[in-house]
Protein backbone atom coordinates (compact mmCIF):
# COMPACT_ATOMS: atom_id res chain seq x y z
CA UNK A 1 0.00 0.00 0.00
CA UNK A 2 2.80 2.37 0.98
CA UNK A 3 4.74 1.33 -2.11
CA UNK A 4 1.76 2.15 -4.32
CA UNK A 5 1.36 5.52 -2.63
CA UNK A 6 5.02 6.33 -3.29
CA UNK A 7 4.74 5.06 -6.86
CA UNK A 8 1.88 7.45 -7.60
CA UNK A 9 3.82 10.38 -6.09
CA UNK A 10 6.91 9.43 -8.10
CA UNK A 11 4.88 9.12 -11.30
CA UNK A 12 3.36 12.59 -10.87
CA UNK A 13 6.76 14.09 -10.06
CA UNK A 14 8.14 12.41 -13.16
CA UNK A 15 5.37 14.01 -15.21
CA UNK A 16 6.44 17.43 -13.93
CA UNK A 17 10.07 16.69 -14.84
CA UNK A 18 9.06 15.62 -18.34
CA UNK A 19 7.00 18.80 -18.62
CA UNK A 20 9.99 20.85 -17.44
CA UNK A 21 12.31 19.20 -19.95
CA UNK A 22 10.02 20.28 -22.74
CA UNK A 23 9.36 23.73 -21.31
CA UNK A 24 11.32 26.39 -23.17
CA UNK A 25 11.40 28.57 -20.07
CA UNK A 26 13.92 26.15 -18.54
CA UNK A 27 16.15 26.26 -21.59
CA UNK A 28 15.89 30.05 -21.63
CA UNK A 29 16.77 30.28 -17.92
CA UNK A 30 19.78 28.01 -18.33
CA UNK A 31 20.89 29.73 -21.53
CA UNK A 32 20.65 33.22 -20.05
CA UNK A 33 22.32 32.13 -16.81
CA UNK A 34 25.27 30.58 -18.66
CA UNK A 35 25.67 33.56 -20.96
CA UNK A 36 25.57 36.14 -18.16
CA UNK A 37 27.82 34.14 -15.82
CA UNK A 38 30.42 33.72 -18.55
CA UNK A 39 30.12 37.42 -19.35
CA UNK A 40 30.67 38.36 -15.68
CA UNK A 41 33.61 35.97 -15.55
CA UNK A 42 35.19 37.56 -18.60
CA UNK A 43 34.69 41.09 -17.22
CA UNK A 44 35.97 40.06 -13.77
CA UNK A 45 39.04 38.47 -15.33
CA UNK A 46 39.91 41.74 -17.05
CA UNK A 47 38.90 44.02 -14.15
CA UNK A 48 40.80 42.96 -11.01
CA UNK A 49 38.55 44.83 -8.56
CA UNK A 50 35.54 42.74 -9.52
CA UNK A 51 37.08 39.36 -8.87
CA UNK A 52 36.00 38.47 -5.36
CA UNK A 53 33.02 40.15 -3.79
CA UNK A 54 31.28 41.55 -6.81
CA UNK A 55 31.51 38.40 -8.91
CA UNK A 56 29.94 36.38 -6.08
CA UNK A 57 27.23 38.96 -5.49
CA UNK A 58 26.27 39.43 -9.12
CA UNK A 59 26.37 35.73 -10.03
CA UNK A 60 24.42 34.52 -7.02
CA UNK A 61 21.84 37.29 -7.34
CA UNK A 62 21.50 36.41 -11.00
CA UNK A 63 20.91 32.74 -10.15
CA UNK A 64 18.31 33.75 -7.60
CA UNK A 65 16.52 36.15 -9.95
CA UNK A 66 16.42 33.73 -12.89
CA UNK A 67 15.07 30.89 -10.78
CA UNK A 68 12.67 33.14 -8.91
CA UNK A 69 11.07 34.12 -12.23
CA UNK A 70 11.24 30.54 -13.49
CA UNK A 71 9.47 29.23 -10.36
CA UNK A 72 6.67 31.82 -10.63
CA UNK A 73 5.85 31.08 -14.25
CA UNK A 74 6.47 27.34 -14.24
CA UNK A 75 4.50 26.51 -11.08
CA UNK A 76 1.49 28.74 -11.82
CA UNK A 77 1.33 27.69 -15.48
CA UNK A 78 1.56 23.98 -14.71
CA UNK A 79 -1.11 23.97 -11.99
CA UNK A 80 -3.39 26.29 -13.92
CA UNK A 81 -3.11 24.19 -17.11
CA UNK A 82 -3.89 20.96 -15.20
CA UNK A 83 -7.21 22.45 -14.11
CA UNK A 84 -7.95 24.25 -17.38
CA UNK A 85 -7.47 21.27 -19.69
CA UNK A 86 -8.97 18.98 -17.03
CA UNK A 87 -5.95 16.68 -16.95
CA UNK A 88 -6.18 16.87 -13.16
CA UNK A 89 -9.32 14.70 -13.44
CA UNK A 90 -7.33 11.85 -14.96
CA UNK A 91 -5.19 11.68 -11.86
CA UNK A 92 -7.80 12.28 -9.20
CA UNK A 93 -10.75 10.27 -10.52
CA UNK A 94 -9.11 6.89 -10.18
CA UNK A 95 -6.34 5.90 -7.79
CA UNK A 96 -4.40 9.03 -6.99
CA UNK A 97 -5.52 10.91 -3.90
CA UNK A 98 -5.45 14.68 -3.72
CA UNK A 99 -2.59 14.54 -1.20
CA UNK A 100 -0.53 12.31 -3.49
CA UNK A 101 -1.17 14.65 -6.41
CA UNK A 102 -0.13 17.67 -4.37
CA UNK A 103 3.03 16.11 -2.95
CA UNK A 104 3.97 14.68 -6.37
CA UNK A 105 3.57 18.05 -8.06
CA UNK A 106 5.48 19.85 -5.29
CA UNK A 107 8.42 17.44 -5.39
CA UNK A 108 8.41 17.57 -9.20
CA UNK A 109 8.56 21.38 -9.25
CA UNK A 110 11.29 21.46 -6.64
CA UNK A 111 13.39 18.79 -8.35
CA UNK A 112 13.12 20.49 -11.75
CA UNK A 113 14.18 23.87 -10.32
CA UNK A 114 16.93 22.27 -8.21
CA UNK A 115 18.44 20.60 -11.27
CA UNK A 116 18.48 23.94 -13.07
CA UNK A 117 20.08 25.67 -10.04
CA UNK A 118 22.71 22.95 -9.69
CA UNK A 119 23.67 23.11 -13.36
CA UNK A 120 24.04 26.89 -13.43
CA UNK A 121 25.38 26.97 -9.83
CA UNK A 122 28.18 24.60 -10.78
CA UNK A 123 29.17 27.01 -13.53
CA UNK A 124 29.34 29.85 -10.98
CA UNK A 125 31.51 27.72 -8.68
CA UNK A 126 33.85 26.74 -11.52
CA UNK A 127 34.20 30.33 -12.71
CA UNK A 128 34.69 31.62 -9.16
CA UNK A 129 37.35 29.00 -8.45
CA UNK A 130 39.12 29.81 -11.72
CA UNK A 131 39.09 33.55 -10.96
CA UNK A 132 40.19 33.29 -7.33
CA UNK A 133 42.17 30.03 -7.44
CA UNK A 134 40.20 28.76 -4.45
CA UNK A 135 36.77 27.27 -3.82
CA UNK A 136 34.51 29.68 -1.93
CA UNK A 137 32.57 27.54 0.57
CA UNK A 138 30.15 30.41 1.21
CA UNK A 139 29.00 30.11 -2.39
CA UNK A 140 28.33 26.40 -1.91
CA UNK A 141 26.18 27.26 1.11
CA UNK A 142 24.57 30.00 -0.97
CA UNK A 143 23.44 27.37 -3.47
CA UNK A 144 22.06 25.19 -0.67
CA UNK A 145 20.05 28.14 0.67
CA UNK A 146 18.88 29.06 -2.78
CA UNK A 147 17.46 25.56 -3.28
CA UNK A 148 16.01 25.62 0.22
CA UNK A 149 14.37 28.97 -0.44
CA UNK A 150 12.90 27.61 -3.67
CA UNK A 151 11.16 24.99 -1.50
CA UNK A 152 9.43 27.87 0.29
CA UNK A 153 8.73 29.82 -2.90
CA UNK A 154 7.16 26.76 -4.56
CA UNK A 155 5.01 25.97 -1.53
CA UNK A 156 3.66 29.55 -1.35
CA UNK A 157 3.04 29.60 -5.10
CA UNK A 158 1.24 26.25 -4.94
CA UNK A 159 -1.06 27.49 -2.19
CA UNK A 160 -1.89 30.69 -4.06
CA UNK A 161 -2.40 28.83 -7.37
CA UNK A 162 -5.03 26.59 -5.78
CA UNK A 163 -6.87 29.63 -4.43
CA UNK A 164 -6.65 32.28 -7.14
CA UNK A 165 -6.40 32.72 -10.89
CA UNK A 166 -2.98 32.75 -12.54
CA UNK A 167 -2.67 36.52 -12.79
CA UNK A 168 -3.80 37.19 -9.22
CA UNK A 169 -1.44 34.48 -7.97
CA UNK A 170 1.53 36.17 -9.63
CA UNK A 171 0.63 39.64 -8.32
CA UNK A 172 -0.18 38.40 -4.84
CA UNK A 173 3.03 36.42 -4.64
CA UNK A 174 5.11 39.40 -5.75
CA UNK A 175 3.34 41.59 -3.21
CA UNK A 176 3.97 39.05 -0.43
CA UNK A 177 7.59 38.72 -1.45
CA UNK A 178 8.33 42.44 -1.49
CA UNK A 179 6.35 43.04 1.70
CA UNK A 180 8.24 40.28 3.54
CA UNK A 181 11.54 41.52 2.13
CA UNK A 182 10.76 45.04 3.35
CA UNK A 183 10.02 43.72 6.82
CA UNK A 184 13.22 41.70 6.76
CA UNK A 185 15.18 44.79 5.72
CA UNK A 186 13.58 46.87 8.51
CA UNK A 187 14.34 44.18 11.09
CA UNK A 188 18.02 44.08 10.10
CA UNK A 189 18.42 47.81 9.68
CA UNK A 190 16.61 49.36 12.61
CA UNK A 191 14.84 46.76 14.72
CA UNK A 192 11.04 46.55 14.87
CA UNK A 193 8.10 46.96 17.17
CA UNK A 194 5.83 44.07 18.22
CA UNK A 195 3.33 44.35 15.38
CA UNK A 196 5.95 44.33 12.64
CA UNK A 197 7.81 41.49 14.34
CA UNK A 198 4.57 39.50 14.39
CA UNK A 199 3.97 40.19 10.71
CA UNK A 200 7.52 39.21 9.90
CA UNK A 201 7.06 35.95 11.75
CA UNK A 202 3.85 35.11 9.86
CA UNK A 203 4.86 36.27 6.38
CA UNK A 204 6.68 33.84 4.10
CA UNK A 205 10.04 35.27 4.97
CA UNK A 206 12.66 34.84 2.31
CA UNK A 207 16.09 34.77 3.91
CA UNK A 208 18.35 34.16 0.94
CA UNK A 209 18.85 37.85 0.39
CA UNK A 210 20.00 38.30 4.01
CA UNK A 211 22.51 35.52 3.50
CA UNK A 212 23.79 37.12 0.32
CA UNK A 213 24.12 40.45 2.13
CA UNK A 214 26.32 38.75 4.69
CA UNK A 215 28.50 37.27 1.97
CA UNK A 216 28.78 40.59 0.18
CA UNK A 217 29.74 42.41 3.36
CA UNK A 218 32.15 39.59 4.25
CA UNK A 219 30.52 38.97 7.62
CA UNK A 220 31.35 35.87 9.61
CA UNK A 221 28.59 33.28 9.30
CA UNK A 222 28.10 31.02 12.27
CA UNK A 223 26.90 27.44 12.06
CA UNK A 224 24.09 28.48 14.43
CA UNK A 225 22.86 30.97 11.84
CA UNK A 226 23.03 28.33 9.08
CA UNK A 227 20.95 25.92 11.19
CA UNK A 228 18.46 28.73 11.89
CA UNK A 229 18.09 29.54 8.17
CA UNK A 230 17.62 25.91 7.21
CA UNK A 231 15.19 25.23 10.06
CA UNK A 232 13.13 28.37 9.60
CA UNK A 233 12.74 28.00 5.84
CA UNK A 234 11.99 24.27 6.17
CA UNK A 235 9.29 24.89 8.79
CA UNK A 236 7.73 27.68 6.72
CA UNK A 237 7.67 25.48 3.59
CA UNK A 238 6.01 22.68 5.54
CA UNK A 239 3.49 25.10 7.02
CA UNK A 240 2.46 26.38 3.58
CA UNK A 241 2.35 22.87 2.15
CA UNK A 242 0.01 21.72 4.92
CA UNK A 243 -2.15 24.81 4.38
CA UNK A 244 -2.29 23.96 0.65
CA UNK A 245 -3.27 20.38 1.44
CA UNK A 246 -6.14 21.54 3.67
CA UNK A 247 -7.30 24.03 1.05
CA UNK A 248 -7.04 21.51 -1.81
CA UNK A 249 -8.92 18.83 0.12
CA UNK A 250 -12.09 20.91 0.08
CA UNK A 251 -11.60 22.45 -3.34
CA UNK A 252 -14.16 21.62 -6.02
CA UNK A 253 -12.81 20.92 -9.49
Amino acid sequence: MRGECMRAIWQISRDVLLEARRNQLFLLTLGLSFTLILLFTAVSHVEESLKNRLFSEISMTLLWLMHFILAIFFVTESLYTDVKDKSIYFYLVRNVSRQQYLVGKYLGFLTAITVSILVSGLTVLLCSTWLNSTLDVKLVWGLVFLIWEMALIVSVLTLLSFMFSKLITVFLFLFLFFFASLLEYLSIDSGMNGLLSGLLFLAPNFKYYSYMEMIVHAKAISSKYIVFLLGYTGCMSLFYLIATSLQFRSREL
Partner: protein
Amino acid sequence: MSSEIAIFASQVKKSFRKNPRHKEKFPVLNNLSLSVTKSQSIAILGPNGAGKTTFMKALLGLVFPDSGQIQIFSHPAGSQMARQRLGFLSELPLILDFLSRQSFLNHFASLISDAGHSKDNTLDTLIQDLIGNIPIDLPMSSYSKGMMQRLNFARVLQKDPELIFLDEPATGLDPIGQLNIVRIVNRLRELGRTIYVNTHSIDFALEAADRVVVLHQGRIVTDQMCKDISRSELENLFLGLDSIRS
Protein backbone atom coordinates in the same frame (compact mmCIF):
# COMPACT_ATOMS: atom_id res chain seq x y z
CA MET B 1 -28.49 -9.57 -13.91
CA SER B 2 -26.84 -8.77 -10.58
CA SER B 3 -28.82 -6.54 -8.24
CA GLU B 4 -25.78 -4.98 -6.54
CA ILE B 5 -26.11 -1.21 -6.53
CA ALA B 6 -23.29 0.46 -8.47
CA ILE B 7 -24.45 4.06 -8.07
CA PHE B 8 -26.64 5.31 -5.29
CA ALA B 9 -27.55 8.98 -5.00
CA SER B 10 -30.17 10.23 -2.60
CA GLN B 11 -31.65 13.74 -2.30
CA VAL B 12 -28.53 15.37 -3.74
CA LYS B 13 -28.56 19.16 -3.69
CA LYS B 14 -25.92 21.46 -5.08
CA SER B 15 -25.97 25.16 -5.79
CA PHE B 16 -23.37 27.58 -7.08
CA ARG B 17 -22.92 31.31 -6.78
CA LYS B 18 -23.75 33.16 -9.99
CA ASN B 19 -20.75 35.36 -9.38
CA PRO B 20 -18.06 35.19 -6.67
CA ARG B 21 -19.07 38.71 -5.58
CA HIS B 22 -22.74 37.80 -5.13
CA LYS B 23 -24.12 35.89 -2.20
CA GLU B 24 -27.07 34.63 -4.18
CA LYS B 25 -26.79 31.00 -5.25
CA PHE B 26 -28.64 29.20 -7.97
CA PRO B 27 -29.49 25.51 -7.64
CA VAL B 28 -27.88 23.10 -10.09
CA LEU B 29 -29.03 19.82 -8.54
CA ASN B 30 -32.44 19.76 -6.88
CA ASN B 31 -32.99 16.79 -4.56
CA LEU B 32 -31.71 14.46 -7.22
CA SER B 33 -32.01 10.74 -6.46
CA LEU B 34 -30.81 7.96 -8.72
CA SER B 35 -29.94 4.31 -8.33
CA VAL B 36 -28.08 2.26 -10.93
CA THR B 37 -27.62 -1.48 -10.58
CA LYS B 38 -24.44 -3.27 -11.53
CA SER B 39 -24.14 -4.16 -15.25
CA GLN B 40 -26.72 -1.58 -16.23
CA SER B 41 -25.99 1.00 -18.90
CA ILE B 42 -27.56 4.39 -18.24
CA ALA B 43 -27.59 7.47 -20.47
CA ILE B 44 -28.17 10.90 -18.98
CA LEU B 45 -29.71 13.32 -21.44
CA GLY B 46 -30.51 16.96 -20.97
CA PRO B 47 -30.06 20.43 -22.41
CA ASN B 48 -27.04 22.58 -21.52
CA GLY B 49 -27.15 23.65 -17.88
CA ALA B 50 -29.39 20.75 -16.85
CA GLY B 51 -26.86 19.60 -14.24
CA LYS B 52 -25.47 16.54 -16.07
CA THR B 53 -21.81 17.45 -15.67
CA THR B 54 -22.18 18.62 -12.07
CA PHE B 55 -23.94 15.38 -11.17
CA MET B 56 -21.24 13.30 -12.84
CA LYS B 57 -18.55 15.30 -11.03
CA ALA B 58 -20.36 14.70 -7.75
CA LEU B 59 -20.40 10.96 -8.47
CA LEU B 60 -16.68 11.09 -9.23
CA GLY B 61 -15.92 12.97 -6.01
CA LEU B 62 -14.73 16.12 -7.77
CA VAL B 63 -17.65 18.24 -6.56
CA PHE B 64 -19.13 18.03 -3.06
CA PRO B 65 -22.93 18.14 -2.70
CA ASP B 66 -24.46 20.65 -0.29
CA SER B 67 -26.65 17.86 1.06
CA GLY B 68 -27.65 14.32 0.20
CA GLN B 69 -25.76 11.09 -0.04
CA ILE B 70 -23.74 9.53 -2.87
CA GLN B 71 -22.27 6.05 -2.86
CA ILE B 72 -20.34 4.07 -5.45
CA PHE B 73 -20.54 0.32 -4.77
CA SER B 74 -21.60 1.22 -1.21
CA HIS B 75 -18.54 3.43 -0.65
CA PRO B 76 -18.68 7.23 -0.38
CA ALA B 77 -18.05 8.98 -3.70
CA GLY B 78 -14.42 10.08 -3.98
CA SER B 79 -13.17 7.57 -1.42
CA GLN B 80 -10.28 5.32 -2.38
CA MET B 81 -12.52 2.21 -2.35
CA ALA B 82 -14.92 3.90 -4.75
CA ARG B 83 -12.19 5.25 -7.02
CA GLN B 84 -10.56 1.83 -7.36
CA ARG B 85 -13.58 0.47 -9.16
CA LEU B 86 -14.28 3.15 -11.73
CA GLY B 87 -12.95 4.58 -14.95
CA PHE B 88 -13.66 7.97 -16.50
CA LEU B 89 -13.50 9.17 -20.09
CA SER B 90 -13.75 12.91 -20.53
CA GLU B 91 -15.17 14.79 -23.50
CA LEU B 92 -11.69 16.25 -24.07
CA PRO B 93 -9.16 13.49 -24.68
CA LEU B 94 -6.07 13.73 -22.50
CA ILE B 95 -3.09 14.46 -24.71
CA LEU B 96 0.49 13.95 -23.61
CA ASP B 97 1.71 14.75 -27.09
CA PHE B 98 5.31 13.65 -26.56
CA LEU B 99 4.34 10.10 -25.56
CA SER B 100 3.79 7.20 -27.94
CA ARG B 101 0.81 4.85 -27.70
CA GLN B 102 2.36 2.29 -25.35
CA SER B 103 4.19 4.84 -23.18
CA PHE B 104 0.88 6.65 -22.68
CA LEU B 105 -0.91 3.46 -21.61
CA ASN B 106 1.97 2.30 -19.38
CA HIS B 107 2.16 5.73 -17.81
CA PHE B 108 -1.46 5.61 -16.61
CA ALA B 109 -1.47 1.89 -15.81
CA SER B 110 1.32 2.52 -13.32
CA LEU B 111 -0.84 5.08 -11.53
CA ILE B 112 -3.64 2.58 -10.94
CA SER B 113 -3.38 0.34 -7.93
CA ASP B 114 -3.49 -3.43 -8.52
CA ALA B 115 -5.63 -3.84 -5.39
CA GLY B 116 -9.17 -4.90 -6.14
CA HIS B 117 -8.48 -5.82 -9.77
CA SER B 118 -8.64 -9.32 -11.18
CA LYS B 119 -5.43 -10.61 -12.75
CA ASP B 120 -7.21 -12.02 -15.81
CA ASN B 121 -7.98 -8.79 -17.59
CA THR B 122 -11.15 -9.50 -19.53
CA LEU B 123 -10.91 -6.17 -21.32
CA ASP B 124 -7.48 -6.85 -22.88
CA THR B 125 -8.96 -7.94 -26.21
CA LEU B 126 -11.13 -4.86 -26.37
CA ILE B 127 -8.13 -2.64 -25.57
CA GLN B 128 -6.18 -4.29 -28.39
CA ASP B 129 -9.10 -3.67 -30.76
CA LEU B 130 -9.16 -0.02 -29.72
CA ILE B 131 -5.48 0.68 -30.23
CA GLY B 132 -4.81 -1.86 -33.00
CA ASN B 133 -4.44 0.59 -35.87
CA ILE B 134 -2.84 3.41 -33.88
CA PRO B 135 0.84 3.80 -34.86
CA ILE B 136 3.15 2.34 -32.20
CA ASP B 137 6.13 4.66 -32.48
CA LEU B 138 4.62 8.00 -33.43
CA PRO B 139 3.94 10.57 -30.69
CA MET B 140 0.35 11.48 -29.80
CA SER B 141 0.75 14.87 -31.47
CA SER B 142 0.44 13.12 -34.84
CA TYR B 143 -2.84 11.32 -34.00
CA SER B 144 -6.29 12.22 -35.28
CA LYS B 145 -9.03 13.11 -32.76
CA GLY B 146 -10.62 9.69 -33.28
CA MET B 147 -7.32 7.96 -32.50
CA MET B 148 -6.82 10.05 -29.38
CA GLN B 149 -10.32 9.27 -28.15
CA ARG B 150 -9.83 5.54 -28.76
CA LEU B 151 -6.44 5.61 -27.01
CA ASN B 152 -8.02 7.42 -24.08
CA PHE B 153 -10.82 4.85 -24.03
CA ALA B 154 -8.16 2.13 -23.86
CA ARG B 155 -6.51 4.00 -20.98
CA VAL B 156 -9.80 4.04 -19.10
CA LEU B 157 -10.29 0.30 -19.57
CA GLN B 158 -6.91 -0.66 -18.14
CA LYS B 159 -7.07 -2.80 -14.99
CA ASP B 160 -10.73 -3.65 -15.49
CA PRO B 161 -12.92 -0.87 -14.09
CA GLU B 162 -16.37 -2.16 -13.12
CA LEU B 163 -18.11 1.18 -13.53
CA ILE B 164 -17.25 3.40 -16.48
CA PHE B 165 -18.23 7.08 -16.69
CA LEU B 166 -18.32 8.61 -20.15
CA ASP B 167 -18.78 12.35 -20.60
CA GLU B 168 -19.95 13.19 -24.13
CA PRO B 169 -17.72 10.47 -25.59
CA ALA B 170 -18.79 10.98 -29.21
CA THR B 171 -18.64 14.77 -29.37
CA GLY B 172 -16.48 16.10 -32.18
CA LEU B 173 -16.02 12.72 -33.83
CA ASP B 174 -16.98 11.93 -37.42
CA PRO B 175 -19.86 9.45 -38.02
CA ILE B 176 -17.46 6.50 -38.20
CA GLY B 177 -15.81 7.59 -34.96
CA GLN B 178 -19.24 7.90 -33.32
CA LEU B 179 -20.25 4.42 -34.52
CA ASN B 180 -17.00 3.04 -33.11
CA ILE B 181 -17.77 4.51 -29.69
CA VAL B 182 -21.29 2.98 -29.76
CA ARG B 183 -19.75 -0.37 -30.73
CA ILE B 184 -17.24 -0.22 -27.86
CA VAL B 185 -19.91 0.71 -25.32
CA ASN B 186 -22.05 -2.19 -26.48
CA ARG B 187 -19.09 -4.58 -26.15
CA LEU B 188 -18.63 -3.32 -22.60
CA ARG B 189 -22.30 -3.93 -21.90
CA GLU B 190 -21.95 -7.49 -23.15
CA LEU B 191 -18.99 -7.91 -20.80
CA GLY B 192 -21.17 -6.86 -17.87
CA ARG B 193 -19.64 -3.47 -17.13
CA THR B 194 -21.79 -0.72 -15.65
CA ILE B 195 -21.87 2.30 -17.95
CA TYR B 196 -22.88 5.84 -17.04
CA VAL B 197 -22.87 8.18 -20.02
CA ASN B 198 -23.64 11.89 -20.33
CA THR B 199 -24.77 12.77 -23.82
CA HIS B 200 -26.66 15.32 -25.91
CA SER B 201 -27.44 12.74 -28.56
CA ILE B 202 -30.79 10.93 -28.37
CA ASP B 203 -29.58 8.40 -30.95
CA PHE B 204 -26.45 7.63 -28.95
CA ALA B 205 -28.51 7.19 -25.77
CA LEU B 206 -30.95 4.80 -27.41
CA GLU B 207 -28.22 2.78 -29.12
CA ALA B 208 -25.77 2.51 -26.22
CA ALA B 209 -27.90 2.35 -23.07
CA ASP B 210 -30.49 0.15 -21.34
CA ARG B 211 -32.00 3.08 -19.51
CA VAL B 212 -32.40 6.75 -20.27
CA VAL B 213 -32.73 9.57 -17.74
CA VAL B 214 -33.58 13.13 -18.80
CA LEU B 215 -32.42 15.94 -16.53
CA HIS B 216 -33.75 19.47 -16.56
CA GLN B 217 -32.86 22.21 -14.08
CA GLY B 218 -31.26 19.68 -11.76
CA ARG B 219 -34.32 17.42 -11.60
CA ILE B 220 -35.13 14.10 -13.25
CA VAL B 221 -37.87 14.71 -15.81
CA THR B 222 -38.08 11.17 -17.07
CA ASP B 223 -36.44 7.88 -16.18
CA GLN B 224 -37.32 4.95 -18.44
CA MET B 225 -35.89 1.82 -19.97
CA CYS B 226 -34.87 2.49 -23.58
CA LYS B 227 -37.14 -0.27 -24.84
CA ASP B 228 -40.13 1.58 -23.35
CA ILE B 229 -39.56 4.95 -24.99
CA SER B 230 -39.29 5.89 -28.67
CA ARG B 231 -37.01 8.39 -30.35
CA SER B 232 -39.95 10.67 -31.21
CA GLU B 233 -41.18 10.65 -27.59
CA LEU B 234 -37.74 11.72 -26.41
CA GLU B 235 -37.58 14.41 -29.10
CA ASN B 236 -40.97 15.77 -28.06
CA LEU B 237 -39.85 15.76 -24.45
CA PHE B 238 -36.77 17.79 -25.38
CA LEU B 239 -38.82 20.27 -27.44
CA GLY B 240 -41.09 20.69 -24.42
CA LEU B 241 -38.09 21.43 -22.18
CA ASP B 242 -36.81 23.93 -24.71
CA SER B 243 -40.14 25.81 -24.70
CA ILE B 244 -40.08 25.92 -20.86
CA ARG B 245 -36.58 27.39 -21.03
CA SER B 246 -37.44 30.03 -23.65
